[in-house]
């Protein structure tokens, strides 16, 4: 029996709450939001209220974060599994590749990947990737190295447990050990890693969109903040930036709390 810590429950509730709020306010009933928004119209888009843009952006940012976080976690898990199953020189080579990717600054590489993807799309070779798909793929391509390193280290630790040694002594192969013994112990950690990737992906997307390099449409929180720059400078309108900032902070708070609590909790065997 395992107990989910209160901090994780709080973080997950906050995340789910923000997701539901963005769905309801940003997608299902935007008219109700538009008519009741106390923050007024956006100076750079006079046809939309600040609330519509903030909650619409929250929906897009959340979708990008969830998709990119899931994809990078999956790639990291696959690389770590292949590394541990292969062992020896293959594992060392994969780890050096992980180090190389990990050492690169996310924002710069995502910018270059966006440039490459947009050029492919302009030339009709985009493979059906729209701005959303391109951003998710770019974030996953730079974001898998951290999870791969964490999963590899966790697998290495789990393999030294007595029950795994016993299973191996009884003739269990690598794939069997991974599927039957290691994966169940790894699942809560995988959820924690996924939740830790969520804010990283959202913040990287926000920064790249803010620079005006990503063509995210409908606008994410980052692109919305990027387009609000002129309004803020010339109208002194903190009201334009503060709601989107608050939503971004709440997203990261939820994901960080849940991730930290889940990765720190020792799980007792059933």
């Amino acid at each position, binding site marked *: 029996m395992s107990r989910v810590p209160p901090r994780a429950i709080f973080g997950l509730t906050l995340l789910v709450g923000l997701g539901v709020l963005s769905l309801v306010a940003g997608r299902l009933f935007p008219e109700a939001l538009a008519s009741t928004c106390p923050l007024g119209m956006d100076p750079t888009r006079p046809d939309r209220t600040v609330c519509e843009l903030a909650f619409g952006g929250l929906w897009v940012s959340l979708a990008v974060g969830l998709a990119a976080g899931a994809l990078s976690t999956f790639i990291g898990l696959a690389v770590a599994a292949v590394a541990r199953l292969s062992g020896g020189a293959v594992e060392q080579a994969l780890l050096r590749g992980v180090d190389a990717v990990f050492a690169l600054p996310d924002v710069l590489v995502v910018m270059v990947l966006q440039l490459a993807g947009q050029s492919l799309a302009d030339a009709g070779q985009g493979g059906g990737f729209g701005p959303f798909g391109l951003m998710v793929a770019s974030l996953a391509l730079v974001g898998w190295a951290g999870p791969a390193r964490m999963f590899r280290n966790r697998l290495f630790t789990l393999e030294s447990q007595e029950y795994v040694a016993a299973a191996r002594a009884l003739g269990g192969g690598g794939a069997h050990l991974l599927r039957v013994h290691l994966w169940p112990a790894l699942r809560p950690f995988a959820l924690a890693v996924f939740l830790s990737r969520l804010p990283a992906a959202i913040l990287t997307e926000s920064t790249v969109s803010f*620079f005006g390099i990503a063509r995210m449409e409908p606008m994410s929180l980052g692109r919305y903040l990027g387009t609000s720059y002129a309004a803020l400078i010339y109208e002194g309108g903190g009201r334009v930036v503060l709601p989107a900032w608050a939503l971004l902070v709440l997203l990261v708070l939820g994901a960080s709390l849940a991730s930290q609590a889940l990765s720190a909790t020792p799980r007792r065997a059933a």
Partner: protein
Amino acid sequence: MRVVTQRLARQLILVPVVAVASYFLMAALPLTTETDAKRQVSKELAASYQRDLGIGEPLGFLRPWEKLFRGERLGTSAQGITGDELLLKLSGSVGVGLMALPLALAWALGFALLRTTWRRGRWAALGDAVPAVAFGTPVFIPALLLAPAVVERGHMLPELCAALVTSVWPGIFLGTLVGDSLETELSRDYVRTALGKGLSRGTVLRRHVLPNVWPALLDAVGPVATSLLAGSFAAERVFGLPYFGQLYVLAVLNKQVAVVVVATTTFASLLVLVSLAVEALRYALDPRSREATA
């Protein structure tokens, strides 16, 4: 020593890997001129890209570097940049990063002390909330909020403000890490033993605890250096500082592919230099690193 040499070699090999990878990624960009779509490049520009990158030539991947070392402009127009200008702009960004470093250390120390104090009282939740607010705030948001007050003024104020907003996230990150590490070490038996033998708290901290906290701090230097430099890009953009971040973003937006190749590699080289310095420092400060296996 062999282990350290291996680590150094691993770091150094990153530079040519980044150079070659970024070159071939740029060279693979389709620069067709078959349609008249708005974003397509003209025939002349496409030919210029091909020349800049040496596409289709033997050892063509060395072309951007040849131009750089000959002192020629990289890029396809008068907006291209020479190696000297690149270094000047990079030094501007590094300067902002260096101003941000002591600020980050001050944030770290302050937050680590506050967190230790909060942990014992009813403000404990703030120990989690403050990092979440700091991590959830991209550099450009405080920069945007400060910008109206500082962009029109000179006297290094934009640089200082850029350093200030860049330092917050790395500072809180370092503070969390050092605070946790400090707390773990302070609860260990050797601290109780040293105090029990009559040593003062300051002596125990300086002689016994801090040497065990250094490795955690050094582990964080890599990500912190990356975030200080990459964070300064966003701040430079908002405060209108004409340094490396501005150059990089404009090069990407204007598809100055040779500039992107050289700038990416230069940035990676800078990060490798930071890693090498950290490895050397670790070797000097942490005896365990000299015994560690690869």
